[in-house]
């Protein structure tokens, strides 16, 4: 057999794109699969309209990076060294005796199966948004930060609206400025991190001139759009009968509790909430890859502990697009070297390695700044719906913990059904863990997507290209 080694890359975000280009340049055949109709992932896909329209200085550099990557992908696709399979929803990656089978479902319907056989796989599945519940969060008009970003695509539909952006984390800034730039009246950015915690961490943050400059750029834009920043505040309730009409925001005290009497009502028709991101680890866990906390564990070469499986980008830890790019590049290089039988020498990816080290340090520091209020579970009233899929309330979860002997999210799930619905606990997991009084632990989801039983029954029997 003289055929070139074949690498399957799952996820066409910054990490997967960088990996595909690097691996193809290194002489392996690549199949890049992604659920979306276009390459780009969370970052390049969503703010594209805004970026093109306004080309804000702070993001200019990243826009050029994206154009370079897209060009690289096009070249490799034309030369036949990369095959790009769009609208392929991967539900499972199976390890076989002689490699891997990637099992996918096609198109928006996700009914027809497709399978790809490969010698190695690279997981670049990114992350998903974390949202913590509070009274009223299920009202129409309350969206995730990413959902608000997606609204921007139809910029006409959003102008004239009044929005509040709330939660915690670095994503709230671009979301607030993005909405404002699209003509939405953003009446407040409610961030639970206190200005003090930034100061406490200022050394680690200051070591990142680029990032701080980016942050400063956002601050200037917040000002320009007259977005009021309420740091050290949280949303205690969203109000409305049919849909969202207003929110109540309140200040937090030093212990992370709502300061009585500080509540203020802010009228709005849109509330964009986010409490950071969590890594997608379903495919990795099913393959048996070890985790570090909630993220896939990788070594310096971005290899997981399962031979033949690499991982890069936010599946290995949340850290923004630039970090995903660096990790993807290293993973692609490493995979190409290993699959062509060479040992990657030191310095093969020295520049990317420096970026990776710097950004990981930076995001570790950010993580400790951006945290939900220490006592956020107190905001969840007994009739607040915690699990939307199965309509399980905060009271039901508390009863399972206090009276039925549940001490962990798994038992709460068994006793209340919280987390058993369509989203499989991706949404309510953090809230249930918080109410059960324990940290969020990875929950095994053997199927990254729901799979028709007929497809499952015949998995592995398709002809492979």
């Amino acid at each position: 057999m003289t055929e070139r080694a074949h690498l399957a890359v799952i996820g066409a975000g910054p990490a997967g794109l960088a990996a595909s280009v690097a691996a193809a340049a290194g002489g392996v055949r690549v199949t890049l699969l992604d659920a979306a109709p276009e390459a780009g992932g969370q970052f390049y896909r969503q703010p594209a309209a805004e970026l093109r329209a306004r080309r804000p200085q702070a993001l200019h550099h990243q826009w050029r990076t994206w154009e370079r990557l897209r060009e690289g992908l096009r070249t490799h696709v034309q030369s036949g060294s990369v095959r790009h399979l769009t609208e392929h929803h991967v539900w499972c990656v199976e390890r076989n005796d002689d490699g891997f089978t990637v099992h996918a479902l096609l198109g928006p319907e996700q009914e027809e199966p497709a399978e790809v056989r490969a010698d190695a796989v690279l997981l670049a599945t990114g992350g998903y948004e974390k949202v913590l519940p509070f009274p009223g969060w299920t009202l129409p008009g309350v969206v995730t930060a990413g959902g608000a970003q997606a609204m921007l695509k139809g910029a006409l539909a959003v102008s004239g609206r009044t929005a509040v952006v709330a939660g915690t984390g670095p994503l709230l800034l671009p979301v607030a400025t993005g909405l404002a730039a699209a003509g939405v009246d953003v009446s407040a950015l409610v961030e639970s991190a206190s200005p003090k915690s930034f100061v406490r961490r200022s050394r680690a943050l200051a070591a990142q001139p680029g990032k701080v400059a980016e942050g400063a750029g956002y601050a200037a834009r917040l000002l320009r759009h007259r977005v009021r920043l309420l740091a050290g505040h949280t949303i205690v309730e969203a109000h409305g009968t049919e849909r969202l009409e207003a929110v109540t925001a309140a200040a937090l005290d030093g212990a992370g509790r709502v300061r009585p009497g500080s509540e203020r009502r802010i009228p709005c028709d849109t509330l964009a909430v986010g409490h950071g991101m969590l890594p997608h680890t379903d495919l990795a866990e099913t393959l048996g890859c070890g985790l570090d906390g909630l993220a896939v564990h990788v070594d310096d070469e971005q290899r997981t502990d399962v031979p033949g499986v690499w991982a890069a980008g936010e599946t290995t830890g949340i850290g923004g697009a630039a970090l995903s790019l660096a990790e993807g590049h290293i993973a692609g290089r490493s995979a190409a070297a290993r699959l062509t039988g060479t040992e990657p020498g030191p310095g093969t990816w020295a520049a990317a390695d420096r970026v990776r080290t710097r950004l990981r340090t930076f995001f570790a520091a950010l993580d400790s700044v951006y945290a939900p209020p220490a006592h956020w579970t107190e905001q969840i009233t007994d009739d607040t719906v915690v699990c939307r899929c199965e309509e399980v309330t905060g009271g039901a979860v508390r009863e399972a913990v206090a009276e039925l002997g549940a001490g962990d999210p798994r038992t709460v799930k068994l006793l209340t059904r919280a987390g058993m619905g369509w989203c499989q606990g991706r949404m309510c997991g953090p809230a249930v863990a918080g109410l059960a009084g324990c940290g969020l632990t990875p929950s095994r989801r053997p199927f990254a997507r729901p799979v028709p039983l007929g497809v499952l029954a015949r998995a592995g029997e398709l002809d492979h290209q």
Partner: protein
Amino acid sequence: MVGAACAWYAGRAGLDVILVDRGPVAGGTTGAGEGNLLVSDKEPGPELDLALLSGRLWGELAREFGDAVEYEPKGGVVVASSPDGLVALERFAEGQRAAGVAAEPVAGDRLHDLEPHLAPGLPGAVHYPQDAQVMPALAAAHLLRASAARLLTGHTVTDVLRAPDGTVRGVRTDRGDIHAPAVINAAGTWGGELAALAGVRLPVLPRRGFVLVTEPLPRRVRHKVYAADYVADVASDSAALQTSPVVEGTAAGPILIGASRERVGFDRTFSLPAVRALAAGATRLFPFLERVRAMRSYLGFRPYLPDHLPAVGPDPRVPGLYHACGHEGAGIGLATGTGHLIAQALTAKTPDLDLAPFRPDRFAEEAA
């Protein structure tokens, strides 16, 4: 589940009970299996007798807890997939009837009256009205809450305390000693380890099983339905994968398909071949399931003993030590009978069933 049932029946017999578990309630195999209460899959013998006793007791408990534990006396339908299979199945049912099981033959052309969505062309089946269902985690939690037992979760038993004469005095946990004249080993798949702490051998081993869960659907499967080859699997000694899934609707809407049987130790790695076989078996029985989506799959480790019977009753080797473990794929169903028999043994009553086949020291010879 077994520990909760022992606590319930012992408490009702007037005993003061402390339930110790290193995890939460239902954190062991009970939270990782299904809640079929079956007589249909058991051949005449001690296990069937225990199942019949247990089924009656579940019926009594259901009067108090029925809805809370999602008890459904829905009955089972065991389908033959070939004419030969039907002959074997009917012979099997005949033996069960003699032992007190209600088992009604169903001709091929009547099958769809019972289960309208079954595949066409199946030769026939046997209907078992005594088969029922509970939601195991809810059953364990509610039984425990209603019992007078003190619950100590998050306590790991690290030793069994014994007096100089060898009699049990209680247990040592990582959070302190608990003194009691009787200790019941209801540690399921880990029952062998607990027995070892008391210095005795009980060869409980894990047998892995996967379950598939679909998206929620309006009720389309009315009974517990499975193919007749299941009966052969349960009594099998093969280490290889075997599947003949039970298909059943649940109160909450999803259909459960399970379970596979493999002896692979405590290996938690997902196995696509195992769940693929479950999906294939289920879609063969119910073609409409082809387009229904599997949402998730989970696995657990059944506690099994070499002769596929549980250990129930006092351990003659260690006075004061009782065993209630090793129920393999039937520990939910058999829990009530087990708890009841243990309570009788603890209070020196004559047990309703002969405990000899369940003697915990029946494997002692092999140790030598």
